[in-house]
């Protein structure tokens, strides 16, 4: 009989295998419960998880360099930072074209700010150059215009650069302007023989149409476009053959005149605007930080830096973050232990007292909890400062002299005292709720079996309260590690936490990448500690009530 059943698949009444039917029923149950929690899950995902990841992702993002100066980044690939010499003319040419577009879009200063995190001085180099870059093509613009006044006219440029179909569409639009002007199109001929000019003029036309709501037929081109035209015509003297009509005449005339043009070095123009452009060191920084993603912020967060030759530690006088991480962990542990030492007896008392008294005591525990954090912190200032209440009392009672007033605030002591006080309820409440469930009969039983008070507490009561200690300790520790307002107000210089630096980089220095990297490291540190805690104590042993 038993043999027969083991070989047979159990089925339900309608002949389906029992296992499958069960699984289906369970799956349906699971789906239903998932549906129940779906609103909360979606809410948490959208309002909590997604923004956090978006913020943390900034710690590696670095598109700004390759997006703002794409041509320069490509041109720089050839250049070797090891030579110790600034790159050649072609890189500066690419930079000129990138720069004029960036300046018109007001993006060069953002790039300057970004690179200034890595190399001091780049911010003003970008800003200062931005004011002058529109003049860099002037020499060429003047010569083209001297050659033929027509080059001054926006319409001339459109004749040469725009595709015939666009010119027609634009004319049709101009006679009856409804909606926006048709999007500019470059002529195939220009694209073919005047690549640099097309590139830059295309960017110009797009800028004029999109950003300024104007027409390329009415706006004077940026002067570096003349420089681009000069460059193309020098490289390709027969450019005119690709064009027809008026454009061919213009380009032909220009191409013939170009070899006689007076030239200027773009490199010298840049160095003239700011001599730092001649420094290979600065170029090495630009090249090092050209990739779309960077480890630079994380390295900074670990007191290291990315150099062209690899990763190295920052100079001693700039190392701060590792030390702050260490201090944050250390102080948080001290605060957690102080909370435990102070909170355990109170929770014990709360659990042991008759309800009438314990409720009153509980209100006393909760009362500061309901008071504003800032008020409590400021109250500690009044109490702890050198001319404060505690010192005054000590001097009055003669315990210390007037000259020997204790320094209890604006240092680590201040942070530990104020934060222990603020976080104490988070220790007491879980402890209390666990102790409430410990039956007094165990201790009585232990005593009746001959244990003294201490043995009964230590061997019988205390082990049962450990889940409460675990919960309280985790709560207090995790809250403490991310605190920043209290340390900022009472911590002085020796009592501040890593979160103070994160707050500084978010709201003051605006280095969000570094702030995100520091935040990620802090998160990882907490998770690691959590895992370690789970291994040692076991997360099952945590009880909140």
């Amino acid at each position, binding site marked *: 009989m038993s043999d027969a059943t083991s070989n047979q698949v159990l089925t339900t009444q309608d002949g389906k295998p029992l296992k499958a039917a069960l699984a289906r029923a369970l799956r349906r149950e699971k789906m239903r419960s998932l549906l129940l929690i779906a609103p909360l899950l979606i809410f948490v995902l959208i309002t909590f998880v997604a923004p956090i990841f978006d913020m943390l992702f900034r710690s590696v993002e670095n598109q700004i360099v390759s997006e703002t100066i794409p041509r320069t980044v490509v041109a720089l690939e050839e250049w070797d930072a090891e030579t110790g010499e600034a790159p050649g003319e072609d890189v500066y040419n690419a930079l000129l074209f990138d720069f004029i577009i960036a300046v018109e879009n*007001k993006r060069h200063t953002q790039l300057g700010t970004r690179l200034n995190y890595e190399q001091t001085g780049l*911010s*003003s180099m970008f800003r200062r150059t931005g004011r002058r870059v529109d003049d860099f093509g002037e020499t060429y613009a003047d010569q083209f215009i001297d050659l033929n006044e027509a080059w001054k006219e926006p319409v001339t440029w459109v004749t040469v650069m725009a595709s015939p179909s666009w010119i027609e569409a634009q004319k049709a639009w101009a006679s009856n302007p409804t909606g926006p002007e048709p999007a500019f199109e470059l002529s195939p001929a220009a694209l073919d023989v005047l690549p640099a000019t097309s590139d830059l003029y295309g960017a110009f036309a797009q800028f004029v149409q999109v950003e300024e709501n104007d027409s390329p037929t009415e706006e004077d081109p940026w002067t570096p476009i003349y420089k681009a035209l000069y460059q193309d015509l020098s490289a390709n003297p027969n450019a005119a053959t690709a064009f027809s009509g008026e454009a061919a005449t213009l380009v032909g005339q220009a191409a013939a005149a170009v070899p006689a043009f007076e030239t200027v070095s773009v490199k010298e123009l840049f160095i003239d605007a700011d001599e730092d452009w001649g420094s290979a060191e600065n170029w090495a920084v630009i090249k090092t930080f050209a990739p779309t993603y960077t480890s630079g912020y994380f390295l900074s967060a670990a007191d290291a830096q990315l150099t062209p030759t690899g990763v190295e530690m920052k100079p001693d006088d700039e190392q701060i973050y590792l030390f702050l991480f260490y201090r944050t962990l250390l102080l948080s542990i001290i605060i957690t232990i102080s909370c435990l030492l102070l909170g355990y007896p109170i929770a014990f008392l709360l659990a042991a007292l008759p309800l009438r008294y314990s409720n009153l005591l509980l209100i006393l525990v909760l009362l500061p909890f309901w008071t504003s954090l800032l008020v409590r912190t400021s109250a500690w200032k009044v109490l702890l400062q050198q001319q404060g209440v505690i010192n005054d009392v000590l001097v009055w009672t003669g315990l210390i002299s007037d000259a020997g007033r204790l320094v209890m605030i604006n240092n680590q002591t201040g942070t530990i005292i104020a934060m222990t006080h603020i976080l104490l309820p988070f220790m007491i409440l879980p402890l209390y709720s666990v102790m409430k469930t410990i039956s007094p009969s165990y201790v009585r039983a232990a005593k009746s079996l001959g244990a003294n008070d201490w043995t009964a507490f230590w061997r019988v009561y205390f082990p049962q309260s450990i889940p409460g200690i675990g919960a309280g300790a985790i709560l207090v520790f995790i809250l403490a590690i991310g605190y920043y307002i209290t340390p900022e107000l009472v911590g002085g210089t020796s009592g501040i936490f890593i979160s103070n630096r994160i707050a500084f980089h978010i709201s003051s220095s*605006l280095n969000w990448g570094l702030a995100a990297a520091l935040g990620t490291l802090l998160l990882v540190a907490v998770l690691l500690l959590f895992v370690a805690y789970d291994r040692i104590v076991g997360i099952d042993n945590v009880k909140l009530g």
Partner: protein
Amino acid sequence: MKLKTAILAGTALAFASTAAVAEDMTVVSWGGAYQASQKNAYADPYMEANPDINIIWDESSNEAVAKLRAMNEAGNVTWDLVDVVASDAMRLCDEGLAMEIDHDEVLAAAPDGTSASDDFGDLIVSDCFIPQIVYSTTFGYRSDVEAWGGKEPDDICDVFDLEAFPGKRSLEKRPINNMEWALLCDGVAKEDVYDVLETDEGIDRAFAKLDSIKDSVVWWSAGAETPQLLADGEVVIGSTYNGRLFALIEEQKQPVKMLWDAQVFDLDGWIIPTGLPDDRLAMVKDFVKFATDTQRLADQAKYISYGPARKSSAPLVGQHADLGIDMAPHMPTDPENAKNTFLYNYEWWADYRDDLDAKFQAWLAQ
């Protein structure tokens, strides 16, 4: 029936009043006495003259740069006009978050016809910045310290002299200003300070000088801390904004005096966020034109001891609105106070802030 009519009439009235409700304009400032001075000097008079505009204050100037950046990224800038210090205005301009303006077009000319750009002169430190006031970061000291034996500090270097002037000092928890003062007192000439500070040796010199008083310094991060520390007797000398010290001395009558030597001038003013729709922009421009004209800036000095940014406003500065004392001698720009001043170099700090801040924090943590 009667009730129904009443309700209907009430509803109609409510609708009518919402229809006539004023256009809101969100103006961001610093809160406290400073915002009150702006409210009294020009926001309230403006609303009186333009009942269809309702100014809503937001006290977020402290973190304006970060918040504007976040708003801009979210594509929803809800602020119309923001009060910031000049260095923040430059940063906002750099980031493309503040609008570049033509000062002569947007701002009113002086009564004698001088153009706005000439009237404000050098104080227009950025194309996006509309200056309002000149303030200074300077020192206040307690005038009742027994240990000083009747002497009073009259030189910036007395701050660094623990022997003649023992006691705690309060300094701002950032390198700006402190590094300059340290170098000045280490014998560097005023015009060379930034050149020296650019070198590693210069930075070491400044830190070495600050090291000599480091153990006696309480570092502050909010402008209200020094006045409180001085009032409590926690510190005997402390740096803060001169307007805060004015309130401490003249309004709260504390035994504190001003040490004007080597005060560092700084500017505060408006910026207009980029990307405002045309109707809001027109409204903001109209308000700014009114709020920064010669008389309005002079009026502001009735409520707070900050100097008006227009040259033409200076002669119009009168008495304090409540205390009835002459305001001119309390202005940082008063010739008696401005015998020795230090000019803060915005461009230089824009470059070196990140670098020096890291060094300064590392130095503090040592």
